[in-house]
């Protein structure tokens, strides 16, 4: 979570963000490479199937804290594509997003299945989400398949906006003084940036793969294409037994930085917290024990008198 004063201009804000990112990366804290696909896949320069399709992913990460929401809209401008536009609208050609969330983030399949409108388009492919584990112990990745419904206006294909709730896992405690003495720290805090950047950890929200599949493609034909293919579900409702070949559609995204800052425990106070908790607990136990024993003694005395 970034706390920015409103007076600070957009440029200053982005400068601070960059600085923080640099700091974090220098320290090697968290993050991870985006599961975006290879460079080759991104460009798909020799793939004729995706020619003339200029895709754009508009993404906003809304809400605060550990439980946020991804707001995704896909827009494709079609110019001289081998696939006619009406094939998208009559659903012969389908678009989908496939996202693999690594250990830091999960999508709760049970929550998603409760959300009207989303439940029909989405499919969580992993069987086990490991809902309770913190980031460093989570054994499961969320693989999320979202089928997109598109509408066309002129030569523009636009998908409905998809809202997917995501949950961040607890991160391993970090030293909150790990940036102390860093030359840029003064600048960060002084300019109305974070109160203490070291109290947060950057977590990368992975971008999806944008997938395209047309019904008349057969395996023979696609095998000859110089395209990067992804084999996954045919639709959000199809069975896992019949997989389809999807072509990864290169796209641009509005979100340059997909980094979310998550509060993290302070490992500097480990000793303090351990000792203090221990003292409070011991004190409580001793107090309660004495109270109980005193009461017992008094009751015995009264019984004797009677």
């Amino acid at each position, binding site marked *: 979570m970034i706390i920015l004063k409103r007076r600070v201009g957009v440029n200053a804000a982005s400068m601070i963000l960059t600085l923080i990112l640099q700091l974090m990366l220098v320290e090697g804290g968290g993050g991870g490479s985006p599961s975006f696909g290879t460079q080759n896949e991104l460009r798909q320069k020799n793939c004729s199937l995706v020619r003339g399709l200029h895709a754009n992913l508009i993404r906003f990460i809304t809400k605060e804290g550990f439980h946020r929401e991804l707001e995704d809209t896909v827009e494709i401008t079609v110019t001289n594509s081998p696939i006619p536009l009406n094939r998208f609208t009559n659903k012969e050609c389908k678009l989908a997003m496939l996202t693999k969330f690594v250990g830091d983030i999960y999508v709760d399949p*049970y929550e998603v299945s*409760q959300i009207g409108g989303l439940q029909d388009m989405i499919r969580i492919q992993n069987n*086990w*989400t*490991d*809902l*309770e*584990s*913190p980031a460093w112990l989570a054994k499961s990745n969320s693989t999320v398949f979202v089928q997109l419904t598109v509408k066309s206006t002129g030569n523009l294909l636009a998908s409905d906006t998809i809202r997917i709730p995501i949950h961040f896992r*607890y991160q*391993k*405690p970090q030293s909150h003084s790990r940036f102390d003495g860093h030359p840029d720290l003064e600048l960060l805090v002084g300019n109305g940036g974070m109160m203490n950047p070291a109290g947060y950890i950057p977590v990368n929200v992975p971008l999806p793969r944008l997938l395209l599949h047309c019904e008349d493609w057969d395996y023979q034909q696609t095998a000859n294409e110089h395209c990067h293919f992804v084999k996954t579900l045919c639709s959000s409702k199809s069975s896992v037994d019949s997989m389809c070949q999807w072509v990864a559609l290169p796209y641009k995204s509005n979100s340059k930085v997909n980094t979310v800052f998550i509060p993290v*425990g*302070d*490992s500097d*106070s*480990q000793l303090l*917290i*351990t000792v203090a*908790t*221990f003292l*409070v*607990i*011991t004190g*409580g*136990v001793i*107090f*309660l*024990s004495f*109270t*109980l*024993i*005193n*009461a*017992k*003694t*008094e*009751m*015995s005395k*009264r*019984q*004797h008198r009677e």
Partner: protein
Amino acid sequence: MGALLIVRDLCAGLIIRLLAVGYGLYHDSTNEVKYTDIDYNVYTDAAAYVVKGQSPYLRETYRYTPILAWLLTPNITTSWDSYGKILFSLFDILACYLIYLIVLQEHGNDRVLARKCTYLWIFNPLPIVICSRGSSESIILCLVLAVLYLFLKKTYLLCGLVYGFAVHFKIYPATYCLPLYLCLGGGSSTRNLTSVKAFSLHVLKDVLTLTQPRLILVLSSVIGFTLPTAVCYWIYGYEFLDETYLYHVTRTDIRHNFSLYFYLLYLNTDVGGTLGLLLKILSFLPQAFLILLVTFLFTTQKDLIFVMFIQTYCFVIFNKASSVVAAGLGLAAVGFAGRYVLRRMPNMAQQMTEAMKTLPNLDEALSSGKYYKGGFDPKMNRREASLILGISPSANKARIKEAHKRLITINHPDRGGSPYIASKINEAKDYLENQGGGSSGLRR
């Protein structure tokens, strides 16, 4: 008549709970933060798996007996997903009725007092919200209260069976096994704590004495636990044991941030070795110690209800996964309240009874022609005196005199009245005159 009144109260409680369930539906449809308990969705999902003929443990974080999922299958089959909340509300009302029965049992059939005690649960916003949000706690509450009631009724066979089932349903009531067992001892009640050694020796001897009720209780508890557990194990195998019971012992999830142990366990998450083991013991020892301490100190008083209450409180305060909002505050509160209560313990029950009795009686206006069950109170009190004379407890001297005159003329022994009743009428008049008005009337 008294029986009808409790039915009326229970119906009122049920209506309030159903209204709360209805509000929940409205709240959930209009708010981002839901009224429905997240665990309710877990039970419902588990029930959906059961309906499909699968294991409820396919639902992540389902850590309950499969019986709960079976109970909630109508959530799925009737596609009426408030069914479970209504079921839990009914159990909550049953709990109220059990409170009523327990108070009747403890306080010689004082129906008015028993009803007033149930009000503490019927109209308590906390249980109303808990059950209408769809938390299954009311079921385990009913089971534990049923155990208490059957214990007080001395039907140990049934008591043991219900207790065993309660432990099967949720493992936590297992801590009550010691007080239940110890309360059935035939041991002498004279005890002095001057010598710890003598006390421990006595306790040890007491534990080892196997009386017939104890034997019945132990055996029936074992049957009550084993039977449902064996059936569930037979159907769902090791997964059932692992999720329902073993998980609660070995749990390592660190996100229970209302627990006293939350930050400690989070920061020390990768501490292994001796220190790690020490921390594990630390997070378990206080509970165990206090539970045992209260058991051995007080079961000799035969105050089972008190022991179980203190046990539960200690368990919740020092729990790793406690959802109690202010565990620390609770710790202080229970300490001070406990001290206060315990200091005044011998008079406590009586004072409580008196306090409950002086509460304004709602029913008098509503019910005509009912009579008071039971005899006179052991000692004349304001409430009884005013009831005998048929006047308000705050009536002035003239009214007291007038009422007394009217009654004594009718009931005078010289005219065939009962001498006992006449003496009570006189006593009531004296009591009120001495108590109220400030002027001192002369005692006969």
